[in-house]
């Protein structure tokens, strides 16, 4: 019962009742508002639970990729050619650093920083994304690591990373063949993204840049693992929730015999040139040297500008002469000319000509001179090879004609990529009518054909092509793609790469192989042969052919020093050969630029290499490939690409 009185006399009952009502209203208000809170919390905690649960996990769980260890590379005898060594690098994360220059100055007071290191770092800062770490100084010594470590708390965004870095114990001996790895560049990363391989390279710092390291990048790289880690709000790792280990890259066994490689490199002694050795029975590349060379380890940690400029010298050490040096083959293809002529029935074993010291086309004034001014007299196919008679082959070439020469030489791989398993290669030129039309927009003149007989004119080859052609002759027509990779070792087991045999060259008369081979045999073994004196006393019988190519060193727009002009126009010395004669195990090509006569300069190097390979007293270890139990069940066939 409540009566509303507005009187100055206070009605206690009414006031109590008023308060009670207000208190109840207030409490109802409280209940409603608590209801609102609970409804809102219900919405957050029950209706949107999944969303927030995901966000909470996204906050704390990070996936950290783990880089796989790069596969090691061995030679055919299991000698290590490329290994991984732990190396400490000082890296900066620009995003986390307020004043980059001040930080660098501060670091400079702790460890010495060269101008080159600074400028290289600042250059990368501009190129890379800000959250990525950038190397300031690599190959820290233990002392430097210690000095930096105690100061790291003052240097936010600065980290010392311990990484496995590639190391090439044989250095410059094998550079062009083995190649090297270098830091992933912005360009590499774009390519990786385009190839859809971003996940695979998530933690990778280095990539194969050249040679085998580049060609077999995928096999060597492996697959990354990852760590699922819990982090706090500052990104510090609290614990590891889950870990999947990386699948390390495959170990590769090259066909290279590092002893041969080393020998050949040492024998070249810094001269510009190349040595290539191939096993004629399977195309295995036993040695592939390009000289001059450089230390691949320089590139692994990022080469300095100063060092890189040195590599741009006129001697062009960066170029792999074995596959990219294009030289006129000169007399080293005379056995092939002979074969072509025999097959075309232009000559036979007994055909001989008179060599007055020159050759002349009818009705043309120009004389093609023999290297022996007074001529070789009566010359048959054997003597032509043994003495390297030019006139004989001028005649042969003229009678064969460009079309026959071109199509015949085509089978021996001239003008084609050899298919060697590195990317750096040139096709060189096997001229033809069509080629001249396209290249020079000129018809083919008969005079062009004549110098083809002695491997001059437009004809150029690379040392690997030449070695391959000799290998085919040694194997009487059996052809193989030259291969650097011999076998690989992965978690699936040891897998030998089979020889890549191409269709054999079948001659109309198999005896013609024997004639060409015998001609080469006489070069080396018959008194008066151009390589007779060099190979005198060898413990094995070999066959070969010398060559002395007129001019043209590699490169097109080289600037010649006035003083060097003469030197650079000297003849290239060349030699091709194989041994043992009856059971060929190795075919070899030696090219030395501007060194003069092939017999005097190139053949001695071939002799040294063949001696080393074939001399049983050297206690040659059998090739590792033969030693291994071949895992035939391995399904992952090796892909060369």
């Amino acid at each position: 019962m409540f009566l509303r009185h507005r009187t100055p006399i206070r009605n206690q009952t009414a006031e109590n009742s008023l308060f009670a009502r207000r208190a109840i209203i207030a409490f109802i208000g409280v209940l409603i508002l608590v209801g609102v809170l609970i409804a809102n919390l219900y919405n957050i905690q029950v209706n949107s639970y999944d969303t927030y649960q995901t966000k909470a996990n996204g906050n704390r769980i990070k996936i950290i990729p783990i880089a796989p260890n790069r596969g090691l590379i061995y030679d055919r005898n299991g000698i290590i050619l490329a290994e991984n060594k732990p190396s400490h690098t000082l890296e900066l994360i620009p995003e986390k650093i307020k004043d980059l220059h001040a930080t660098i100055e501060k670091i400079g007071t702790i460890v010495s920083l060269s101008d080159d290191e600074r400028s290289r770092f600042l250059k990368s800062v501009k190129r890379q994304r800000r959250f990525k770490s950038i190397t300031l100084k690599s190959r820290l010594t233990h002392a430097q690591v210690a000095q930096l470590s105690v100061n790291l708390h003052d240097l936010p965004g600065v980290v010392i990373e311990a990484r496995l870095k590639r190391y090439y114990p044989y250095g410059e001996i094998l550079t062009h063949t083995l190649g090297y790895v270098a830091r992933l560049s912005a360009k590499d990363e774009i390519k990786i993204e385009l190839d859809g391989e971003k996940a695979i390279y998530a933690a990778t710092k280095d990539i194969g840049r050249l040679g085998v390291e580049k060609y077999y990048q995928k096999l060597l790289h492996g697959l990354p693992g990852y760590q699922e880690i819990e982090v706090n709000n500052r990104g510090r790792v609290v614990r590891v929730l889950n870990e999947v280990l990386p699948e390390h890259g495959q170990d590769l066994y090259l066909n290279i015999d590092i002893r041969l490689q080393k020998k050949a490199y040492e024998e070249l002694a810094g001269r510009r040139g190349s040595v290539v050795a191939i096993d004629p029975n399977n195309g295995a590349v036993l040695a592939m040297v390009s000289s001059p060379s450089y230390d691949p380890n320089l590139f692994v940690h990022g080469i300095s500008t100063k060092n890189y400029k040195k590599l741009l010298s006129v001697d062009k050490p960066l170029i792999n002469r074995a596959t990219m040096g294009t030289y006129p083959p000169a007399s080293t293809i005379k056995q092939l000319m002979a074969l072509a002529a025999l097959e075309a029935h232009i000559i036979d074993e007994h055909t001989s000509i008179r060599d007055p010291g020159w050759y002349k086309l009818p009705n043309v004034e120009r004389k093609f001179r023999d290297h022996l001014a007074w001529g070789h007299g009566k010359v048959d196919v054997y003597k032509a090879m043994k003495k390297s008679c030019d006139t004989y082959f001028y005649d042969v070439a003229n009678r064969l004609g460009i079309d026959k020469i071109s199509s015949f030489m085509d089978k021996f791989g001239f003008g084609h990529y050899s298919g060697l398993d590195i990317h750096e290669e040139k096709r060189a030129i096997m001229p033809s009518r069509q080629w001249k039309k396209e290249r020079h927009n000129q018809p083919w003149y008969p005079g062009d054909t004549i110098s083809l007989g002695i491997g001059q004119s437009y004809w150029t080859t690379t040392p690997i092509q030449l070695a391959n052609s000799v290998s085919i002759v040694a194997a009487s027509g059996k052809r193989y793609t030259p291969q650097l990779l011999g076998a690989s070792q992965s978690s699936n087991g040891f897998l030998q790469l089979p020889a890549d045999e191409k269709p054999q060259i079948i001659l109309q008369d198999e005896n013609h192989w024997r004639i060409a081979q015998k001609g080469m045999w006489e070069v080396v073994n018959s008194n008066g042969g151009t390589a007779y004196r060099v190979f005198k006393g060898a413990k094995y019988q070999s066959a070969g052919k010398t060559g002395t190519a007129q001019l043209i060193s590699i490169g097109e727009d080289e600037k010649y020093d006035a003083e060097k002009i003469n030197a650079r126009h000297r003849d290239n010395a060349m030699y091709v050969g194989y041994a043992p004669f009856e059971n060929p195990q190795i075919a070899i090509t030696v090219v030395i630029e501007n060194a003069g006569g092939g017999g005097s300069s190139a053949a001695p190097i071939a002799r040294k290499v063949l001696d080393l390979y074939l001399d049983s007293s050297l206690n040659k270890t059998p090739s590792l490939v033969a030693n291994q139990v071949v895992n035939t069940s391995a399904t992952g066939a090796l892909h060369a690409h």
Partner: protein
Amino acid sequence: MPTNKTGTGFSKPEPLSHKIHLDFPLLAGLLALMCVSLVVIYSASGESIAMVKRQGLNMIVSLTAMVIAAQFNPTFLRRWAVLFFIIGVGLLVATLLFGHVGKGAQRWIDFGFAKFQPSESMKLTLPIMIAHYITRYALPATLKHIFFGAVIIAIPVLLISKQPDLGTSILVGSAGVFALFLAGMNWKIIGSLIVAAVPFSMMMWYFFLHDYQRRRVLTFLNPETDPHGSGYHIIQSKIAIGSGGLDGKGWLNGTQSQLEFLPERHTDFIFSVFSEEFGLKGVIILLALYLFVIGRSLFIANNAQDPFSKILAGAITLTFFVYLFVNIGMVSGLLPVVGVPLPLVSYGGTSMITLMSGFGIIMAIHTHRKVNK
């Protein structure tokens, strides 16, 4: 437990609780909340026993303040209400003139031996003043008295908002407004005040709010616009609460709090820690505990013997609820982030002493009774 209270028991012999001027059910509720506080602070501080000890010390001081406050007869408060209020306003003016600057606001007066926050005491002084003023006349209060009451409220509220301290001025203001409401403020006035709130808040926005306060409001309206800046708090808090789900992640297992994604974990955002680790079920139990404290206090207010005591106890209780509502509202994204702690649970001594003194006054109202009606 000597809580043999049945009914109001006027004629029964005075129970023990009345002799020591404490209300055991209310005390039990408050102690339960303090236990929750210690448990959550242990988790929110990264299992720091030191923090728990310090909070324990805060609690002992606060409980002492409560016991002392409970010993004063409400008539004492009434008698000195005007003086308290004048001193309180004077101190607020002094704070603005000589106060200690901390965190961009001027809230403290440094006496050398201790720092004092006058705005805190105003949370009690103002409702005492309003209750005193309004109950001098018959209730329900007339328009004239409501108006003068509003003026009395406006003085400290404006002084505090100048410091600036939005949270405290809201709490102080609501303490005064609740007193007027309980005094029977006309519904028409309440209605027109709500209508007037719109232009008033616009005026506040342009003339009284500081930039950082405006930013808080804007961030509240759309936290995702600034996920790493001022929106970060709300986003992380909602993630913590939401990922707790129905059952919670378990004590010490809240990833948002343990891994420090949640800011202000043991102070303003402690409710988020609690929600993450104990889930909606825990939240409902906690809210039930608060409702018990509020209900018991309102019950005491309703049973008080005189209008002054009723209005004072009611206003203190409802202000306690404002703490609760604003804090939970802000950490769950319903309200903008204003610095209001979760009452009795957030780490910190200052607000706890005020709150517990308030409950001491409520207990005093309940236990200082005239022997006969």
